């Protein structure tokens, strides 16, 4: 592939990913590229070009999206409106849904050993992080919950396999006598 053709493909990919509101897949880019140019190679070159810059190319939710570099967040928060962080109960519930999906509300409550507040469920639904996914065929047919593509997007995951393995989560025993990290 000529250098000129590659430069043109890079510009096109840059413009396409920049303009889109949602992640752009290699397939979508491929449809715009001339024959013989691999979308994956172009996206990889694009990622290299933006490495270390104020805006970086991230692979999320099955596609590619430009995002600001994490280290700039403290300064950007001064000028960009930031929604509130999810409370601990919501984060725990989200983790349980992510690892046990599809999962019912009683199953979530069983794992947490505590009732699930309606406000917690509402917060996750409103943020679009979880969604109903059918019903469990047991008496009462409770709703099953699963994570959404917005969950992947929000936490910068390519897909659910990007979640750490359960075994790896507990490698470090909790520091003795330490209070739970966040309240």
């Amino acid at each position, binding site marked *: 592939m000529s250098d000129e053709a590659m430069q043109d493909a890079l510009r096109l990919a840059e413009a396409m990913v920049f303009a889109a*509101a949602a992640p752009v897949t290699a397939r979508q880019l491929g449809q715009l590229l001339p024959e013989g140019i691999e979308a994956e190679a172009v996206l990889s070159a694009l990622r290299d070009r933006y490495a270390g810059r104020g805006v970086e190319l991230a692979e999320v939710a099955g596609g590619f999206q430009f995002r*600001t570099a*994490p280290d700039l967040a403290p300064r950007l928060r001064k000028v960009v409106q930031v929604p509130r962080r999810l409370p601990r109960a919501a984060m725990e519930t989200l983790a349980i849904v992510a690892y046990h999906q599809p999962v019912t509300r009683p199953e979530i409550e069983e794992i947490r050993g505590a009732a699930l507040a309606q406000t917690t469920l509402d917060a996750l639904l409103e943020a679009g992080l979880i969604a109903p996914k059918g019903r469990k065929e047991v008496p009462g047919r409770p709703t099953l919950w699963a994570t959404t593509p917005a969950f992947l997007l929000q936490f910068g995951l390519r897909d659910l396999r990007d979640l750490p393995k359960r075994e790896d989560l507990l490698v470090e025993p909790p520091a003795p006598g330490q209070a739970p990290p966040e309240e």
Partner: protein
Amino acid sequence: MEATSEPPAGAQALVLRLEGFEGPLDLLLDLARGQKVDLARISILALVEQYLAVIEGARRVRLELAADWLVMAAWLTWLKSRLLVPAGGEAAEEAEEAAEVLAARLRELQTMRAAAQWLGARPVLGQDVFARGAPEDLSVVDRSRLALDLTGLIRAYLLALRRAAATKPYRPPTASLWSVQQALTRLASLMGSLPDWSTLDAYLPEGLGTALERRGALASTLLAGLEMARGGAVRLRQEAAFAPIEVRRGGEDV
């Protein structure tokens, strides 16, 4: 047990912030982590004693306890009594199994807590990293094509006709009756082209719509026949009352 006379110092502190826990399992996990070993090797018996000491302490300061705290306390009391029997018996086996279930639940909760922390430590979109604030929409809307279907066409047709019918005053359709003069002309022109003694029906005009028009035309044709019979141009006959009336050219005798 010592705890009954003087609860451990740590337990006293826990009593005061009991409401900070999300439930008995939350407290148990916190106590287990206090054992300074990893969760696979915690002592369930020590854990049970700590929990019961906390509940006892809470009762001493007359703290209202929710039912689930007491249910857990009752269950743990049962578990403790079984764990204390000599090993090898059926009760001891049952207790070991129950203790293992409790330990597994604590491990799972701990794992999910760790997962929540892992997620929380990710650069979160909208919190730590930001996507493009003003994405460009490069799509062009083409409205040149029409969305039409047959159902819509027919619905529109019926609607138009119904509305028109509703706005128009009702006018009874004008009856176009076959006059005697028309019947005379038709009878005269057809006479001879039909075989002898044809019924009057044969001389009716074509395209008569309603029964009324037909009866009117029949009456006119009979009148025309009578008129022509008077001058001898035709002859009429009827075999019986209400039988068909027949007609033939007049003049020569049969």
